[in-house]
């Protein structure tokens, strides 16, 4: 879902850079409050894992692929602010070193995947906290991950439409029809990854203690 250079107009570029800079700036303050120094390696390893997992495109249907976004994974483990910083770091590396996502679209990509993706996941995950029944945790993670992809793609659609690249209605139908399916992949991979990470004894310390 990385927007390349050439898809966004100047107004949208400036607007998304401003939004993302504000969100990441505030996210840095919140992360400082919520995490402690012992969790520095956790940030590094989660970013590394998400970078690696994003490289592995999985085929869906009709000659289209998807890949993990990772915002839900980071948001479930560390909360939405730390997640938005992790995803932003991954996106900056991908843009500068691997030509994945344009420099002019970096603000938009950070906003869509880092901010919208992280918060969509976190809100759904939190909203489903009171869901009754056993084994509901996997469903919560799945639903949060699915929503993160669908809402991030909705944000991308809005930016493309605002830029005059493509009419909103047409882009909306096309983008949703793929991302509701890609979101299922995100849900399955994230649920498996979170349970693996918890099984090997990874504890996102401070957040769990505070909650």
């Amino acid at each position, binding site marked *: *879902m990385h*927007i*390349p*250079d*050439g*898809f966004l107009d100047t107004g949208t570029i400036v607007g998304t850079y401003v939004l993302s800079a504000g969100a990441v700036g505030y996210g*840095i303050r919140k992360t*400082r409050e919520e*995490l*402690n*120094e012992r*969790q*520095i*390696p*956790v*940030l*590094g*390893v*989660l*970013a*590394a*894992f998400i*970078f*690696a*997992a994003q*490289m*592995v*495109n*999985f*085929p869906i249907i009709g*000659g*289209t*692929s998807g*890949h993990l976004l990772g915002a839900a994974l980071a948001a479930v483990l560390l909360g939405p602010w730390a997640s938005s*910083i*992790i995803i932003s*770091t*991954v996106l*900056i*590396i991908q*843009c500068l*070193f*691997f*030509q*994945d996502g*344009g*420099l002019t679209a970096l603000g938009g990509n950070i906003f869509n995947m880092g901010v919208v993706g992280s918060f969509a996941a976190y809100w759904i995950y939190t909203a489903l906290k009171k869901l009754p029944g056993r084994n509901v945790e996997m469903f919560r993670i799945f639903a949060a991950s699915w929503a993160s992809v669908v809402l991030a*793609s909705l944000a*991308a659609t809005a930016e493309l439409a605002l830029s005059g*690249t493509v009419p909103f209605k047409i*882009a909306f139908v*096309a*983008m949703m029809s*793929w*991302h509701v399916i*890609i979101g299922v992949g995100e849900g399955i991979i994230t649920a498996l990854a979170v349970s693996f*990470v918890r099984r*090997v*004894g*990874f504890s996102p310390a401070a957040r769990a203690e505070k909650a």
Partner: protein
Amino acid sequence: MKKPLLILFLLSLAIAAFLSPFASPDPDGLDRVAQDLGFEERSEGADIVRSPIPDYKFPGVGSETAATAFAGALGTLVTFGAAYGFGKAVLTLGKK
């Protein structure tokens, strides 16, 4: 680094090096929509910066599998370093 984190880090390197060469080459959701709706060409030649390792293929490596594996492993290390450094700056500098 604690053991669980080390496991996850090594797993990340393994995914990047050994799994990424087998990633689906099909366009992702956005690329597919750009093709179908005919606005893909807007991105052609529009790149602002020239990245050293475009498309996750390490330049000058003959085998495409090895080029992707190298790029993946290197990218994973660089991302770890960047997030670690950024995290250290955020969590140690200016912390009251």
